[in-house]
């Protein structure tokens, strides 16, 4: 047994020219080749991704502003992580299913979830109003890591439904479990790895390593690169430039294909950065330095796509203006929708606990309704 040299195992710094990091588009907007991965996207499709990125960021900006104005209780910004989310989200087929954390606004966008639903949750109107079955997008999960087991179970359900490895590409389906770098320390996440490995479940573990879990840097969760975690469980792990939408798309697509074909799980580490605060309640100046932020600003996920598109014919000024205008309209939709959102009624919560209401709870509702109406006379 030789002592491990930590330097040996700690791996890449995450810079784009590190061979371990899959990158197809440099921060400067230049395309790169990779031996194993290529994005099957023409420039028009890339322009589409650009639009997704911009619109997603706009939702985020608007929501942050609404929170500042007291319209949301809290907001978890995805700033800086748009490429990881749009790239992976667009790699999904309609029959696939995503299990998000609380920050996957870009994936929600790809799944056709109206952003107002996301705002509703952070406003405190409900806990996620969209239909997971219709959208193939699970409810936001706040307990760190819990959804990775749900994803694995769902993937086991796909196996039992015969829609894994059937050879019918229009039916075969896979699952993506989203989670953060911090989440990799939770028992549940590691149990999900074991389950997925043992049952060869069609699930992609998509970890957005944004370098921070609230105030804790990645070193508090691991001493080797996270994608190598998969080695311990017997399935492939890959680190992708999480700010490169093309690479995220290509890597996720390959992993999802593998899943749908019945070749089992894959761990994807999207190496990215949380540009904002953990949530609007957080104050990152207490624990991290500005120059780290500046270094990552230079790797912005949107700027590089824009730079690339400028070198193509797929996008002209009119295109960029059109996207801006769409973003403005979306922002209006988000703002007005948020302000106009009706409050829930307390009596409704009694009906949402069980599929089959209990007499106890029905009685509580009745009594509380009577109590509430006793005030009405008073006004």
């Amino acid at each position: 047994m030789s002592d491990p040299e930590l330097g040996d195992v700690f791996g890449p710094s995450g810079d784009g020219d590190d061979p371990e990091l899959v990158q197809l588009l440099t921060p400067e907007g230049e395309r790169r080749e990779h031996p194993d991965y290529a994005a099957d996207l023409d420039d028009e499709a890339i322009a589409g991704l650009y639009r997704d990125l911009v619109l997603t960021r706009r939702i985020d900006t608007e929501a942050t502003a609404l929170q500042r104005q007291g319209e949301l209780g809290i907001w978890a910004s995805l700033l800086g992580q748009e490429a990881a989310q749009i790239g992976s989200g667009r790699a999904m087929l309609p029959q696939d299913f995503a299990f998000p954390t609380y920050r996957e606004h870009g994936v929600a966008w790809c799944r056709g979830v109206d952003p107002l639903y996301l705002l509703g949750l952070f406003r405190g109107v409900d806990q996620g109003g969209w239909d997971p079955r219709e959208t193939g997008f699970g409810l936001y999960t706040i307990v760190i890591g819990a959804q990775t087991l749900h994803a694995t179970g769902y993937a086991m359900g796909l196996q039992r439904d015969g829609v894994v490895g059937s050879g019918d590409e229009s039916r075969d389906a896979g699952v993506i479990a989203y989670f953060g770098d911090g989440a990799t320390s939770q028992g549940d996440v590691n149990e999900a790895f074991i389950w997925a490995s043992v049952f060869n479940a069609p699930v992609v573990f998509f970890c957005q390593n944004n370098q921070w879990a609230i105030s804790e840097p990645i070193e508090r969760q691991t001493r080797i690169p996270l994608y190598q975690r998969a080695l311990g469980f017997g399935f492939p792990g890959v680190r992708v430039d999480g700010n490169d939408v093309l690479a995220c798309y290509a890597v996720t697509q390959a992993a999802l294909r593998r899943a749908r074909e019945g070749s089992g799980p894959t761990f994807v580490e999207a190496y990215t950065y949380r540009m904002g605060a953990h949530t609007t309640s957080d104050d990152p100046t207490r624990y991290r330095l500005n120059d780290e932020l500046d270094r990552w600003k230079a790797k912005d996920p949107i700027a590089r796509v824009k730079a690339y598109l400028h070198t193509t014919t797929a996008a002209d000024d009119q295109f960029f203006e059109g996207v801006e205008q769409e973003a403005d309209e979306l922002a209006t939709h988000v703002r007005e929708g948020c302000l106009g959102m009706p409050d829930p009624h307390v009596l409704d919560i009694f009906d949402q606990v069980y599929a089959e209401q209990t007499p106890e709870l029905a009685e509580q509702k009745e009594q509380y309704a009577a109590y509430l109406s006793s005030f009405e006379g008073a006004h």
Partner: protein
Amino acid sequence: MAQITMAKALTNGLRAAMEADPTVLIMGEDVGKLGGVFRVTDGLQKDFGEERVIDTPLAESGILGTAVGLAMRGYRPVCEIQFDGFVYPAYDQIVSQVAKLHFRSQGKLPMPIVVRIPFGGGIGAVEHHSESPEAQFAHTAGLKVVAVANPVDAYWMIQQAVASDDPVVFFEPKRRYWEKAELDESVEPVPLHSSRVVREGNDVTVLTYGPMVKTALEAAIAASEEGRSLEVIDLRTLSPLDMGPVAASVRKTGHVVVVHEAVVNLGMGAEIAARISESCFYSLEAPVLRVGGFDTPYPPSRVEEEYLPDLDRVLDAVDRSLAF
């Protein structure tokens, strides 16, 4: 009619549920070839295959967490927890996910999951194998909780629990697994969430469930020899509680003793006592007395007989109630 043990009644009930509905799955540690450490799933993997009767990795959070995903995909997982004391690693998934997803999704994601838990003491086991954690689940909104006391109920209640679109935590009194009764399948079962008078009487109402129903009935027989008439109610459902038969009985007797193995402090008896005094305040001639575990961890098995409520402790409480 043939006599059947509670364990076997559960097997038959599960088998019937699996035959009736192909989405019913069984999952847990050793539930396959071994048929579970109590043999409740005996033969089911052989007949329904490894896809429907799943020997899982050794991790309870994983069992419940994957069950959630399977339920979202339209399956009805019946999860076996090997022993009461091993449900805690799954506690988070149960209380924060299983119990809450229907609510979180405003009904879009029902959670038809059954969590089977062999519970209670009296089998001479080592630590963590004799716990009674039912109150903690009953306190959790979004779960339904039941406890079975006899083979006939076991046969029907497991099927009703599997058919329920709500999550049901299903407690099986392991010391009663080998007790027998006649099972007449043609007799219609009562609803899952109903309590039931199992012996009529006039002097004192004894409320209990699971393993202690037998103890209470034995106490009632002993009491009757001394001329005291105990009415015994098997609560059957712990959440929601079915207080109708309870209130009727209390109005008749004015005296109540609640019996369970779990620690008295914040055990089911606390809630029942509170509710009875809310609803039957003027009928009570004595406070509701509680007989149960002391405020200690479950002790080494050589003293469990003295730790567990028994016939004498029930009768003692009856005496105290009547003497109040």
